[in-house]
């Protein structure tokens, strides 16, 4: 790492003075915060403002955010997309100042929530009733969540692919509901993932291009 490293941003939170050992993008090992007013950017040093997008790098980005949301002292994280790197602290703070309202709104929108994903897969190519299964998700899971998205059905075998925004307090109830669905449809394969930072419920890309 150079003497004047750039800063890679993983997300925005309200909690300050965070320091966490991570296995981050570009070999970064320490996550810390850069604060602007009530906002705190979760950053790590990196030696470029244009990190290469690879499977490993994207995985590192996700795993850092996952480590963050698993901490009890961090209630809400607005995740950034991969590749948001800035020249220095001054540049980053300038961008945070410009995006302050959007960031504040995003934090409010996902306050106290994490994202959980559920995919239902037909094991026998057509044996499952997609309408019934999707109806079951809607009736059992939607009321336990603060938001839902229908995601891409990227495989013919995928019957449903949904993301849910779930308050931390309701995670146990949500887990139980997923378990009940899994038990009621033994032939259907259930892929239940998370908690994730709520990527599908905020869409923030602060001015990386302008910052270089």
């Amino acid at each position: 790492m150079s003497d004047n490293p750039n800063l890679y941003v993983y997300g925005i939170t309200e909690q300050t003075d965070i320091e966490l050992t991570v296995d981050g993008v570009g070999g970064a090992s320490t996550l810390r915060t850069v604060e602007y007013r009530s906002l705190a950017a979760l950053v790590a040093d990196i030696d470029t403002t244009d990190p290469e997008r690879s499977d490993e790098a994207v995985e590192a980005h996700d795993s850092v955010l996952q480590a963050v949301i698993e901490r009890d002292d961090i209630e809400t994280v607005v995740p950034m997309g991969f590749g948001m790197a800035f020249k220095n602290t001054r540049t980053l703070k300038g961008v945070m100042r410009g995006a302050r309202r959007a960031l504040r709104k995003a934090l409010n929108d996902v306050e106290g929530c994490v994202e959980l994903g559920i995919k239902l897969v037909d094991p026998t190519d057509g044996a499952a009733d997609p309408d019934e299964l999707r109806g079951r998700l809607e009736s059992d899971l939607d009321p336990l969540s603060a938001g839902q998205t229908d995601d891409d059905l990227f495989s013919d075998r995928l019957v449903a692919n949904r993301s849910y925004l779930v308050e931390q307090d309701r995670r146990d109830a949500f887990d139980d509901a997923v378990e009940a669905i899994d038990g009621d449809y033994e032939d259907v394969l259930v892929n239940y993932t998370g908690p994730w930072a709520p990527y599908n419920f905020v869409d923030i890309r602060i001015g990386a291009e302008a910052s270089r």
Partner: protein
Amino acid sequence: MLLVDDLLIKPFVSLLDILHAMVLEEMYSVSEIRDSIKENQLLYELGERAQPEYEQQKLELETRLEVAEQVHEKLIGGNIEVQ
């Protein structure tokens, strides 16, 4: 319709060029290959696909994706030559 539109927009491009580009689009669909990569990952995570098969598929699909992305770059740049 797309074919007619293309011919109207680019009257000096031969029909063969356009058909060739369309075939390449079909053969090297980046989105379809990406979907197959996601499907392979999902089926592996669910235990439907054994690790050796998953890894072999992953390698093949990633190679295909690389080729498809190169083809698309050349298509955009108009550098695909029709023999």
